[in-house]
């Protein structure tokens, strides 16, 4: 009986290591999940209008943190364009720690997938949302509760297998 213990330990270790191969250490669980969206009061990148999370209440909304200096954001951009096509999803962009003109010209160059673009020059809102690797994407339900966070660029696969079903599910929920 006792001689099987090393074997069991070995396969246990193997299991842990195999699982570890699949995990990305830069993707950390967010403490914001299932909490109300952190507060902000920010100006639009384009005009003097001010917005807060309450501005989007009642709808499922996506909050994408991006910057013109962020290369992965370019990779992610086509997926955002696809997300824009989803009916009833409010797309909110946060231009994080950027220069006003750089942010605007980035959107001119690649196209603006957002319904509202907010400008977070100092990065304070980014800190409140626990942003540490741009791009980051949050999805809020109709009550304004954070339901999902994605760190790094959203891939085509993430879009199809995670985001689309999740958004459908959240849209079906009662406000």
């Amino acid at each position: 009986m006792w001689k099987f213990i090393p074997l069991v330990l070995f396969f246990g270790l193997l299991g842990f290591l195999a699982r570890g191969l699949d995990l990305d250490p830069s993707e950390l669980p967010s403490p914001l999940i299932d909490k109300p969206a952190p507060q902000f009061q920010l100006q639009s990148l384009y005009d003097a209008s001010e917005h807060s999370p309450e501005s989007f209440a009642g709808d499922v909304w996506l909050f994408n943190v991006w910057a013109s200096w962020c290369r992965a954001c370019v990779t992610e951009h086509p997926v955002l364009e696809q997300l824009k096509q989803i009916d009833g999803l409010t797309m909110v962009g946060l231009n994080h720690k950027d220069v006003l003109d750089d942010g605007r010209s980035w959107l001119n160059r690649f196209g603006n997938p957002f319904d509202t673009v907010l400008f977070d020059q100092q990065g304070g809102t980014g800190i409140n949302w626990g942003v540490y690797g741009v791009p980051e994407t949050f999805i809020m339900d109709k009550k304004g509760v954070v339901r999902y966070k994605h760190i790094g660029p959203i891939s085509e696969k993430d879009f199809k297998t995670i985001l689309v079903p999740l958004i459908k599910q959240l849209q079906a929920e009662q406000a």
Partner: protein
Amino acid sequence: MVNPYRKTIIKPSILQLFAVLCVLLGLALNAQSAETVLKFENEGHAALYLRLTQEFRCLKCQNQNLAGSNADLAQDLRNEIYQAVVSGQGREEISDYLVARYGDFVLYRPPVKKITYLLWFGPFVLLLFAIIGGWRLISSKPAFTAAEPSEALEAARRRLNE
């Protein structure tokens, strides 16, 4: 024509060059440290700031603490901590603030809770296994016993005695 500056031209010796280098290096180090001078009202605040920036992890560069990282995010968080310390917030408050935003991972010392039980107590469980295993190994019958000398040995000894 006589150059009026002629006399003042020096041929630098190695030693002089070395001296100049030392001065330049000193200036460079000075310039670097001047960037990070922070003003605190009292020693306690300064100590708290130092302690906190060493206690929190930079999430962008996960194997560095906030004090040791030059990442943009680390600078911002150092600044947040500085503002909080200067405004009189304590360690708990600042720690809660960061954990609420970035999660437990921001702490180098993970809190003891359900999800970290394995992390905290796993090594002790392994140690327990090792002790049990070791104890069994020692208390089980040894493979070689120094009991009766074998017949061949006896025969050899007899021959030597003859």
